[in-house]
C-alpha cells in the first residue's frame, strides 16, 4: 500500500467527500466533509483491501482566525499494509460538532472526551461526553487559543500589596 493507491481507492469510493489532499513527510493527508467522516472511517477499517484497523490518534487543533476554525485530526494505521493515513475534519467556530467515532473504534472514547474537555468539540453519538482531565465543574475550554495565557499577575515588590490584597488566602 502506498499513498497514491490509497488516494485512488478513496477517490473512487468517496470522491465528493474529499475537499483537499496533500502529502507531508511521506504521509497522505485527506481533508474530508464531516458528513462522510464516519462512513469513510468505517470503510477504511472494514474494506479487506485496506484494513486500517488501528485508530492511532485523535485530537483537535485550534486555528484561530482561519475558517473553519477548528480541525479534528485522526490518524489511522493499517497493521496489515504497514501504512498510515491522516484524516482532517474542518469544523466551523459556530458549530464545532462532529459524529463520534467511538462505535467504530472504542479507543476514540477517551480521546474524544479530551478533545471535548480542552477544545470544546462536541461529538454526537458519544456514549458519555464528559470532562476527562479538568474538574467536572470547570467553565470553558482552556486549550482554545482565545483562552487567557496567564493565570495570575506576577507579584514583585512594587505590586505585591495590590495583588495579595485580592488573592484568596486559605484560612485554618
Amino acid at each position, binding site marked *: 500500500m502506498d499513498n497514491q493507491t490509497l488516494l485512488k481507492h478513496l477517490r473512487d469510493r468517496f470522491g465528493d467527500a474529499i475537499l483537499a489532499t496533500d502529502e507531508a513527510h511521506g504521509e497522505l493527508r485527506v481533508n474530508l466533509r464531516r458528513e462522510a467522516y464516519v462512513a469513510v472511517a468505517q470503510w477504511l477499517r472494514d474494506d479487506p483491501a485496506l484494513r486500517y484497523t488501528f485508530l492511532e490518534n485523535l485530537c483537535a487543533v485550534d486555528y484561530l482566525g482561519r475558517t473553519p476554525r477548528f480541525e479534528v485530526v485522526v490518524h489511522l494505521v493499517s497493521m496489515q499494509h504497514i501504512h498510515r493515513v491522516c484524516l482532517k475534519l474542518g469544523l466551523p467556530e459556530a458549530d464545532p460538532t462532529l459524529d463520534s467515532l467511538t462505535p467504530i473504534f472504542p479507543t476514540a472514547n477517551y480521546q474524544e472526551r479530551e478533545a471535548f474537555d480542552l477544545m470544546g468539540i462536541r461529538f454526537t453519538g458519544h456514549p458519555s461526553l464528559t470532562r476527562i482531565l*479538568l*474538574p467536572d465543574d470547570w467553565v470553558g475550554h*482552556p486549550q482554545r487559543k482565545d483562552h487567557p495565557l*496567564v*493565570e495570575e499577575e506576577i507579584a514583585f515588590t512594587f505590586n505585591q500589596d495590590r495583588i495579595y490584597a485580592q488573592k*484568596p488566602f*486559605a484560612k485554618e
Partner: protein
Amino acid sequence: MGIEEKAADLGVVTTSLEHVVNWGRTNAMWPLLFGLACCAIEMMGAQSANYDLSRFGMEINRASPRQADLMIVAGRVSRKMAPVVRRLYDQMSDPKWVIAMGDCAACGGIFNNYAIVQGVDEVVPVDVYVAGCPPRPEALIDGIMMLHAKVQREKISGVKEAPITLQHALLQVDVAKK
C-alpha cells in the same frame, strides 16, 4: 541559689509546660506521606541516608493523615488536586503545620496557567515557604528547622504567631564598600 540548682542534684529539672510541649512537638514531627511532583524526589533524598532527616525525629512518613502533623506540599498542585490536598489537611489532627516546598507550591512557579493553583496558600494555610526549583535537601532541612523555631515560639494557648513580614531583603550587598 535557686530551686533549679538544688533540684538538679535530685535529678529534677524545672521548666515551663509550654517549653516541654513545644520541645516534644518539635522533636517528633510526623510528616504526611505524599508527594505531588519532582520536589518529592528531593524530599525523599532529604529523608534518605545522605541527608538523614531522622536527626529531627522525622524518619517515618505516615500514610494516614490522622497520624501526621506536618504536611510537606512537595510539588505543583493542580486545580483538580486542590480539593484533595485540602481534605487531607482537614483530616490531620491538631496541631498541624504546612511547608510549601518549591516554587510551584509557594507561588505557582513556572506554571502560570489555568491548570495549576497559584500557590498552595490558596488552599491550606502555609507556615514555611521553601524556595527552589526544586529546592536541594539542605534547603528543605533549613525550612524544617525554621518551622521548628516557629513551633518553639508557640504559646500553650494554641495561638499561632502571625506571619513574619520581611521589611528588607535577607541578603544585602553593600555596593558602596566595593
